[in-house]
């Protein structure tokens, strides 16, 4: 079977997915659009009534690929349902009716929302702070468990042309179709290992086919402006070959695969997913053809008794302001400007508890580490968080008023204030998570 990656994050390019649907001879096209931050943002949008809780590009993506996928027999799997998979499923069914016609089956996976279960489990420790869940419960707005591959496989076995989910572990989005299509047992860990590894390599889409890789002169990548997204050929015996559409931009070789294999992996002997505990330390990559790499040797042990839950909670407000200075003495003027802003905030009694000053072009990325000569131009950035919206807003205002009250030649001001939705995690016993599949047909 052949499975492609149509998106590696919420706002990813759309054309590579169209290319895969059209020319990739795929069986499945997976869109991974729900990062750690993304589900927080989509929950926030839903709460603020700004928009629905699903991926803002859902409609545009589906209009671009659904008809082609339906014609070519490519089934779609995506976590673009975000915080509201049912609403997203209905959108997809509506688009299917318009561009394809009747009889397109959309499966919506629910059950990742575990707010109700957590209500009576206030002692669960937060993995990041070590404090009990109770310590942030008053501000919690969402709690989503990472579901595994089985519910996706069940949806496909039920005849779905498209599977729309909320929070599902990224590799599981890919493993699900393998379980359904290749008849794999959910207890065959040798196969789950290979499938999970393949999913992990594919989940960030372009990051295995030359994206996030180029360093001109050292590691060159052709055609990043038309980067081809990857697909995997997976056999019933668990053989995996990663490749891309011939003629597309990018490159797939041992180096791109090696970098992506460890991406967001901590201990490489135990990468925990809902489906298994993956060990990638014996993985071998072989370049079997141009832009085609065989990946073998993944191992896995039994899945854990718990599922990871991302808990989103309100954590005050963040304010930010930026302004640029150029030409002679630019750095000194930017530093004077920063002093003025900090003093003004203090005079007004609005100094936020967390405050950060950066000189973009000098110290914003790696702190004081950069010790080059003064640049020709520099951009001051002041950012802070506070429980008070007024205090957070004042940061950008104090930067803006530098235009007429600060050092000479301040230019290109910008300000921003937003509410902060933070995330932490808890582990929830599997038995407390009940998944449900609802079908809707065009």
């Amino acid at each position, binding site marked *: 079977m052949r499975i492609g990656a149509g998106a590696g994050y919420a706002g990813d390019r759309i054309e590579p997915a169209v290319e895969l649907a059209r020319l990739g001879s795929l069986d499945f096209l997976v869109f991974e659009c729900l990062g750690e931050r993304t589900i927080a943002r989509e929950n926030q949008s839903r709460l603020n009534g700004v928009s629905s809780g699903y991926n803002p590009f859902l409609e545009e993506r589906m209009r671009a690929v659904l008809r082609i996928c339906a014609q070519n027999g490519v089934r779609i799997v995506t976590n673009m349902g975000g915080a509201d998979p049912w609403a997203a499923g209905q959108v997809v069914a509506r688009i299917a009716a318009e561009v394809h016609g009747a009889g397109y089956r959309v499966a919506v996976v629910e059950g990742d929302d575990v707010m109700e279960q957590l209500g009576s489990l206030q002692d669960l420790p937060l993995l990041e702070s070590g404090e009990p869940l109770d310590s942030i419960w008053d501000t919690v707005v969402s709690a989503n468990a990472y579901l595994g591959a089985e519910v996706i496989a069940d949806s496909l076995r039920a005849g779905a042309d498209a599977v729309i989910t909320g929070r599902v572990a990224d590799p599981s989005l890919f493993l699900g179709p393998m379980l359904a299509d290749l008849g794999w047992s959910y207890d065959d860990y040798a196969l789950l290992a290979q499938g999970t590894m393949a999913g992990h390599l594919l989940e960030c889409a372009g990051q295995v086919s030359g994206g996030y890789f180029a360093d001109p002169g050292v590691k060159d990548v052709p055609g990043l402006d038309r980067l081809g997204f990857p697909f995997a050929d997976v056999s019933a015996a668990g053989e995996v070959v990663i490749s891309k559409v011939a003629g597309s931009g990018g490159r797939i070789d041992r180096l791109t695969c090696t*970098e992506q294999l460890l*991406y967001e992996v901590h*201990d490489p002997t135990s990468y925990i997913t809902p489906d298994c505990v993956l060990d990638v330390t014996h993985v071998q990559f072989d370049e079997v053809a141009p832009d085609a790499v065989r990946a073998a040797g993944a191992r896995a042990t039994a899945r854990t008794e718990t599922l990871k839950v991302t808990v989103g909670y309100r954590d005050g407000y963040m304010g930010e302001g930026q302004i640029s200075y150029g030409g002679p003495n630019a750095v000194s003027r930017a530093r004077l400007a920063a002093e003025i802003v900090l003093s003004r905030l203090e005079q007004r009694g609005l100094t936020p508890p967390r405050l950060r000053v950066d000189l973009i072009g000098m110290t914003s990325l790696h702190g004081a580490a950069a010790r080059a000569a003064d640049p020709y131009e520099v951009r001051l950035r002041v950012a802070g968080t506070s429980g008070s919206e007024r205090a957070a807003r004042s940061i950008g205002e104090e930067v803006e008023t530098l235009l007429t009250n600060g050092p000479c030649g301040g230019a290109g001001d910008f300000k921003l204030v937003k509410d902060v*939705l933070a995330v932490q995690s808890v582990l929830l016993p599997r038995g407390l998570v009940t998944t449900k599949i609802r079908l809707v047909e065009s």
Partner: protein
Amino acid sequence: MIVRDLANARSGDKGDVSNLIVVARSDEAFQHLLENLTCEKVLRHFEGIAHGPARRYEIPHLRVLNFVLERALDGGVTRTLRQDIHGKSLSSHLLTLEL
């Protein structure tokens, strides 16, 4: 000699943890990094950015060292005040470490 002379790097984020993947360009380069690119040196290089602790994992046949730096992202992607909310640029900083 700096790390960039011997290796490529990629960074990933999870919560407040940054992992820095270092891929050596040759077996000799890997051996040199194995002996010289220690967690202590990396944490010193990331002073003021990553507070640690740090762990190092090795996959010799892929010539990979994977550094896992705790408390590296100012609270993580949803809370950080940094411009680089994911720590995507931290791999570039590692490449400048003097061996």
